[in-house]
């Protein structure tokens, strides 16, 4: 039994190691070098063709809007304009909606804060609920079951069944459930 367990664990470990090596070799060797500045800035802007996509990821075949916007971006980069100024000029041209994500100020901040605030409130609510349920819980361990009695033979079968099921479960669950 012990040898079989060991063998099975070793098999799993080998399998997982192989998967890990594959995973790391896939991504580890491909850390992008110096990312192109245009691409980086382009990821902060939306394409204005209506595709609702980031500028460098517009999925319209032959999109003339993204082509023009990327050209403008390249031209500004060639002039060595600072990044903030470039983004500002796009905002002036297309409005605030050209930015790919809400700004971290004014009303845009609401977009960022709300999901995490909801999550936090949820955590607090769960904490309160769990505490309430914990207080409601009577000491049920060892409480006799209500209703008609069941035969001793039946109980013995049920116990055998439970023992087997508990063995299938985690090794310590039996004691916790008894």
């Amino acid at each position, binding site marked *: 039994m012990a040898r079989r367990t060991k063998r099975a664990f070793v098999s799993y470990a080998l399998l997982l190691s192989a998967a890990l090596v594959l995973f790391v*070799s*896939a*991504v580890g060797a491909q850390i992008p070098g110096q990312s192109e500045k245009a691409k980086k800035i382009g990821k902060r802007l939306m394409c204005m063709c*209506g*595709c609702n996509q980031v500028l460098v990821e517009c999925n*319209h075949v032959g999109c003339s809007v993204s082509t023009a916007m990327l050209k403008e971006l390249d031209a500004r980069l060639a002039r060595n304009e600072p990044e903030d100024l470039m983004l500002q000029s796009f905002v002036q041209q297309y*409005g605030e909606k050209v930015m790919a994500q809400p700004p971290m100020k004014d009303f845009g901040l609401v977009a960022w804060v709300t999901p995490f605030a909801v999550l936090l409130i949820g955590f607090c609510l769960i904490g309160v609920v769990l505490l309430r349920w914990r207080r409601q819980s009577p000491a049920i361990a060892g409480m006799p*079951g209500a209703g008609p009695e069941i035969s001793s033979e039946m109980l013995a079968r049920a116990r055998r069944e439970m023992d087997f099921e508990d063995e299938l479960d985690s090794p310590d669950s039996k004691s916790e459930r008894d």
Partner: protein
Amino acid sequence: MDLFGSFALLLAFACAVYAIVAGIIAIRTRNPLLQKSARHAGIAVCLLVMIGTASLLYLFLTDDFSVSYVAGHSNRDLESFFKVAALWAGQEGSLLFWSLILSIYTFFVLFTNRGKHPELMPYVGVILASVQTFFLTLNVFVVSPFQVFGASGADGVMRLVAQADGRGLNPLLQYPEMVAHPPTLYTGYVGFAVPFAFALAALLGRYPGEKWIHITRKWTMIAWCFQSAGILMGAHWAYAVLGWGGYWAWDPVENASLMPWLTGTAFLHSVMMQEKRGMLKVWNVWLVFTTFLLCILGTFLTRSGVVSSVHAFAQSSIGAWFLGFILLTLAVCLWAFFKNRDYLKSDNQLDSMVSRESSFLFNNLILLAACFAVLWGTLFPVISEAIQGSKISVGPPFFNKVNIPIGLFLLFLTGVGPLLAWRRTSLDSLKRNFGWPLAGGLVAGAIAWPLGFRDFFALICLILSIFVLLTIFGEFLRGAMVISARSGMNIFSSVGQLTMRNTRRYGGYVVHIGMVLVFIGISGAAFNQDKQMEMGPGSQMSLGAYTMNLQAFEPRPAKNYTSERATIEVLRNGQPLVTLFPEKRFFPSNEMSGTMVAIYSTLKEDLYLVYAGRSPENNQPIIHAYLNPLVKWIWLGGLIVVLGTGLALLPNRQPVLAFKGAAESTQASAAAAAPQSVLTRSGSHGSAD
């Protein structure tokens, strides 16, 4: 044929209305004949909607361009295969398709439950007929797919005018995957109407016991499985067709499909609390209601023009109908809940803060928080415009930043949840159960870091993925060892035995394995690379270990389009590997272009080549190459998720002795009074998880 189809839908509408009226009267009068009649009307709706759909399909296959919908979405040169897909390519047809799928679900629900649950099924029939009536109202009176072109002649009589040819199918839809993706996704969306009907029916009829929750869970799993497969097929279509190198763009339509999937997932977990402990009854009912309402909300968002999306149908008056339906459904749910909320009284007791119960609560919180974040991000542009007058865009960077931490926490809970015992878990148990998996995850992280795996979230994802996989494999191994020791079977047969003893539990684990693979695949996106270059014949481009040589560039005529195709020889580390053919197509019927991406896919990475058009300066072809690591793991994970769900739906192979004994000795009443721990291990629905 258009008249025939219209009449079939009209008759279906009449039958659906009859099923509602007769069903309500039957519930009130408890008249069994009327109940039967209402059920038959519900079944007849299925037949009639099928006839209506077949009529439209016939019009497509015979190129009847006097019908506006056919002319708008097909043309003579379109392959028959895609003429079938054109059925759901536009608003009218897709709504008819909803009706068809709903009617098939209704047929199966009514047919498989005939003679069963007499207190519940009449309500279910009425609710499903009500939903069907809404869709048939749209099909018959608002956006009929059978509208024809007509012109009045000199005698003042309107006559049909057939167009010479149709405008053709949107090129983006002319791919085999698009034939499978919408029906699969719709089957998921519409499928959530069934659990909704059972939950509302149980609440309205104050149906005693927990039987309805078992039925609801199974139907939810079916809908969830289709929804999962549909979402992943859509992602694969976006990846293989749209040519931008990604598979998920957080588009409102994609978000609309994800939201009910998240709440449906939450329900599939929290339902166990109700089955095992009689807890969370109110929560579960509202999760089912919310899931259905989110399905309709998603449809509203994309058909009303409220949010802009590449997938969205043109802005139309139909949005108001959906909004009305959502509000009406919500009102009915609220009314039923407040009227009968005492029926949902739960036994909410908790023995320990560290238990399976509390982990399910956190799991539900995380899933719902993710759902809220998606909904919030989708609606925020509309909210910002309404409040401050200018629209603020919410693009993929926002969704990624908000949802990645939430998703990782969910992944963590996926590993933790199954190892916590019901009722209470001791500190020793935590140490024993989590020690090795956690150590395994950390070791994996420690190995990956020096190898260049330096993206923070991707690294956390790797550690958690290994942790979850080890916990799941540990669960399989532990159980299989016990069976192996008792039966002498080898470990692999024992794993099979173990799984079939409790398909729900181990099927669930298989689903978790699939989800872990999906997470691993998604984490690969942190390391994507791409390069774009103008390439003439003979020119070379390098990306990662790959070198691409453009060998030829030629036009290729086809029946329904013209195309330009590049022939690119790919070498890896200098050795010839494969020849790829990225292509750009032009469809003259609707003057639209489409791409045919060429992908060389391995478990390690995808080399993804797009022919992005010709350079305006020198007319040279522009090739955009992407190197996307681990994408294949997503599709593999999706397949495992579907297989796991199928496994979880199978009945347990081996009946449990205690339950069998009780049945044999006709001591059912005694068994019913047995301690809960015995019974919860004994149900044929395998609630031992």
